[in-house]
């Protein structure tokens, strides 16, 4: 094996590692959220005050919580419905788009109000127990139909993929900006090397 072949092999190895390490690193530290089936006796059950609200009316959603001493609940409200408010502590509630998050510490029930706008939809939700490390889906009532609005077509800007019965909130990957920048720089450098090698090859 001559010196050039050796150099070529070393270069190939370095390149492979340079690509593999950042990929593995990013994958390994991306947040993994799994909703585990639970047999711990923890239940969060959803009850609607009505399953056929009138359009433009509000209705109550109650979450009954059993066996969840310290945890979190995230509810996903379907299109055609809008979160209005809650009687739960405001500093333990956060809303963004169609998702509502509740921080749970020694709470047995939460009421929140939703405005019915059009169509039908399925509510979904998850809970996480930070003491037992279990998690699960909110059980109970899911489906709501706005009275007299079954055939109404939503406006174009409101068309989204309807949630499935078992939809799980998608976690937001928590990769810091620095990591993305560094990995991007590394990949770009690789690209430059390839280009340079190609140019040298062309010259040779």
């Amino acid at each position: 094996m001559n010196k050039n072949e050796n150099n070529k092999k070393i270069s190939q190895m370095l390149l492979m590692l340079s690509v593999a390490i950042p990929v593995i690193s990013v994958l390994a530290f991306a947040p993994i959220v799994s909703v585990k089936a639970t047999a711990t006796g923890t239940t969060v059950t959803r009850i609607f005050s009505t399953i056929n609200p009138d359009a433009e009316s509000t209705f109550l959603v109650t979450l009954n919580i059993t066996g969840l001493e310290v945890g979190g609940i995230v509810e996903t409200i379907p299109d055609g419905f809008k979160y209005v408010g809650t009687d739960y502590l405001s500093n333990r509630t956060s809303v963004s788009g169609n998702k509502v998050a509740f921080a749970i510490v020694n709470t047995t029930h939460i009421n929140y109000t939703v405005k019915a706008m059009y169509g039908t939809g399925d509510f979904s939700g998850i809970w996480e127990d930070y003491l037992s490390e279990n998690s699960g889906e909110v059980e109970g009532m899911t489906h709501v139909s706005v009275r007299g609005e079954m055939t109404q077509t939503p406006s174009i800007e409101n068309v989204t993929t309807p949630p499935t019965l078992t939809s799980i909130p998608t976690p937001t990957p928590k990769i810091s900006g620095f990591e993305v920048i560094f990995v991007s720089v590394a990949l770009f450098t690789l690209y430059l090397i390839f280009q340079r090698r190609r140019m040298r090859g062309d010259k040779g």
Partner: protein
Amino acid sequence: MKKTYLFCLFVTVTVTSSLPLLQTASQGEYMGVVVLGDLDGDKIVSESELADNILLYLTATYLGESNEHLKLDKLREAAHIHRYYPRAIIDSAGRNVTIYKPLKRIVVFNSETVETMRSLNATDKIVGVGEYTIKDKIFFPEFTNYPNVGSVWSPNYEEVLNCNPDAVFLYATCSPSYCEAIQNKLNELDSDIIVVRLDCFKPASYTKEVEDLGYILEKEEEARTLVDFYEGVLNSIKEKVDAIPDEGRPEVYFEAYDRYKTAGRESGWHQKLIAAGANNIFSDLSGGYVYVDAEEVVKRNPEFIVSAPSYYAGGYDTDDITELSNPWKEIVSRPELAKVNAVKNGNVYVLSSDAFGGVRHFVAIAYMAKRFHPRLFEDLDPKAIHQEYLIRFQGLDYDLDKHGVFVYPPFGS
């Protein structure tokens, strides 16, 4: 040139790739607080602080917001701290000790506490031990290569700090002035280090110490199991001993570590003699271990002499019976003791201090009770108790039928 260029690239990419690791490590000092999830620095994770942390996590993870928050494993730890901490005990030196978060890194000076922690399956929290633990390679083989923090008589503070401990465990009543000095020095060097003072060798305080250790180490169930076993042995002896009238209790001279050094009423061996159904002829002496005149021993004329000649005589690391038989011969050949009943009647016994001087005092009590009251304790099997303890609680593969020298003359001889 090309190789250098590629090498630099490799280093750059490797370093940048490890950034997530660095980020994860920094989570341990989230917001610069000592107790995870404590936002106001009072070392307690209140309900509102925990709720704040949960909401930050949920909004970042599920609602797509950008914020500084605890990762899931740290949030779980904060929830655990909120639910189960602080934990407070009064240690064996009478000090109020409050633990604000799970102890993960503990330096233990006294081997008795190391042994008790092993019974509680809690040695994974130990990061440094005293020199006597390290030297005892037969009983503590797993600590041979641990950082050596010295002894309470000669502590190595630099090594203690190198261990970066959450807590340091020290004797409570053994050499109290030395332990007090260590406690003060540690407080001066790093006030965040929690000092807990435990003896783990005295019958009077052992049960409470096991329970306290179980509590602060979150090993309550293991502590209950150990206490059940320990008290099961001692209570079975106590029930019978309590029924013995005073005149039925033999007068015993206990000689500890040196000629005519005996056990005063504050010593552990005094408590062991009483528990075994004997009277200590020097129970009128205050303090721990004190020297007495040979004439006083003769004058008090004990029915039994029990000796624990030195820390290194007998034990688990030897099969040489002469380590105990030679001290026995030395005692029985002392001219001044020739007319003492114990010597005249052949009631001189030598015990291994290594084996019976610390936590295993309950085994020593069983051996002595059987010796002092052979008929009353006909069914008591000290060796079986000893063996069960070694296997079940210490996890040691040690066969007492094959190895070790613990009592002379041996039972049955």
